[in-house]
């Protein structure tokens, strides 16, 4: 860490150089900046790559300590893994369905008719920072009736709240890029009703925003540990933490696969977004 700061201290020190030789200074200064940047980025890359690579090596080896893809085949046989996967999948589907049905019509309407209401929705997007999952679950436990407490879908209902900021931001960006008024007026003058406007005109136009909203929701449901574990449901992250395996490598392997999947999926969103932007331009 010290050398990282050092690189930047040197960078700021070029006034000394300038007093020596005016003609040479710009070149030297340039080289020093490069050097400082190189060191900083190298150390950052080391910090971010080494744990990832090391954990990959830890989980992908056979009993002789050599690299092997064989542990991948053991995941499915690990006790209770499939039921955890099934629970997480059910919750993800339920959460995505509720959050999209709730948010898409609301946000289209707000963009069309109540632009001032966006302020309220913006405030709501910042609330999960003030009321993080560990605090939210305390309050939810205090007010939830018993019949709902025993249902796994209580988790989906809570995840909808947690997903709202992500969904709001994706949809807000998507709707902002559309000429919503023209689209809706054109569709209405051609005689279509609201359901068909949303389903046949707006949803296809919002495809990339909807995709990123649902993928972020998916990632959230598959990664959420706090509420699931405190409510006693064995979703994938809870399974990783508490799995009754006699082999810690399998748990780590599942964790690494989850991280990799997050990587791939988020990278896909980024590239998809860029493609749709460049097409529009």
């Amino acid at each position: 860490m010290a050398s990282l700061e050092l690189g930047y201290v040197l960078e700021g020190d070029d006034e000394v150089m300038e007093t020596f030789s005016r003609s040479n200074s710009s070149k030297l200064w340039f080289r020093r900046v490069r050097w400082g940047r190189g060191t900083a980025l190298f150390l950052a890359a080391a910090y971010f790559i080494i744990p990832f690579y090391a954990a990959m090596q830890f989980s992908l080896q056979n009993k002789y300590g050599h690299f092997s893809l064989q542990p991948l085949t053991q995941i499915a046989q690990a006790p209770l893994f499939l039921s955890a996967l099934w629970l997480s999948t059910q919750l993800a589907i339920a959460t995505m369905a509720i959050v999209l049905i709730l948010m898409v019509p609301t946000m289209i309407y707000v963009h069309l008719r109540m632009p001032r209401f966006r302020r309220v929705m913006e405030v709501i997007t910042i609330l999960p920072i003030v009321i993080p999952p560990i605090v939210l679950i305390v309050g939810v436990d205090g007010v939830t009736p018993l019949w709902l407490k025993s249902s796994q879908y209580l988790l989906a209902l809570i995840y909808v709240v947690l997903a709202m900021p992500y969904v709001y931001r994706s949809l807000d960006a998507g709707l902002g890029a559309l000429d919503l008024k023209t689209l809706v007026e054109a569709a209405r003058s051609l005689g279509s009703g609201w359901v068909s406007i949303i389903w046949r005109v707006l949803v296809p136009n919002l495809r990339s925003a909807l995709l990123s909203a649902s993928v972020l929701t998916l990632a959230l449901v598959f990664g959420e540990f706090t509420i699931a574990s405190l409510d006693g449901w064995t979703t994938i992250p809870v399974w990783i933490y508490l799995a009754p395996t006699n082999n810690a490598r399998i748990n780590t392997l599942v964790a690494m696969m989850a991280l990799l999947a997050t990587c791939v999926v988020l990278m896909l969103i980024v590239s998809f977004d860029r493609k749709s932007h460049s097409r529009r331009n």
Partner: protein
Amino acid sequence: MSEFITDTSPAPSGVSDALSAKKSMPGALFRTLRTGAPVLPFLVYVTLGLLLPTVAIINLAFRSNAGKLTFNNLKVILCVSNSTTCSQYRVGFENSLKLALVTSIVPGILGTLIAYAIATSKHELFKRLTAACSGVLAQFGGVNLAFMFIASFGALSGVATHWLADVGFNPWDHGFDLYKFWGVAFVYMYFQIPLMVLIITPAFAGLKESWREAAENLGASSWRYWRHVGLPVLSPAVLGGMFLLFGSGFSAYATAEALTTGTIAITPIQIGAILQGNVLSGEANLAYALGFAMIVILLISVIGYALLRRRTSRWLR
């Protein structure tokens, strides 16, 4: 208000204005309701899912187990009463604040430096790649991240620990402990630094090249440029970012729980322990008091962030 004023005025036009306003009042209300009706499902959901639990926390934080109004819960967690478990929650609170401070200031500074290194790069592809990477890494965290670090930096079987031991520097022999305060802080940096890079990168775009040229033409050294131009422009953004990191470090539960199996004494872990029933009887309402205290701290950090962001955006136009 203005209707009342025109009502009392003797001018006939004012009276008729007031009358027409009165007549349209229910109409306007009806119209507002009709315009607002489609957002009602959303509002109801937020009320039930977010507002109601929050109100419950605030309400129950000030109730005894028998339901009486009391400040006792807050007294216990702040340790101004003589309860036996009093110091435990006070220590947890202090540790949480310390952890949040460390994991906001250090990644705040490092993230700013890295973002600067990226922002001044000439390679467009590199910039895009790092932007995408920080977006991804800021989402890491929780159990997965904890397991990744246990597998790499664990005491006995950690792969990276072995590498370091092979070159003669086993960090565990030099005071490093992944499962204690500084270890947890070390792991938090993995998502805090990318988060800071994401927050701060737009601010570097506000740092106009022409300002630097102007400063150089006036004979300013690089140090003076940063001292009088660069840092004053950047500092609200950096500080605002740190406020946000503070909130994220203060409220993280999953990473710390999975990493230390719940042994580190910080407030989120203590709330979790109370919810799981690992608590003396009669202290269940302490969870609400702890939650309330967290909301207060987080509210301060979010307000700080919002105020500073308003100052930052002035330079970004």
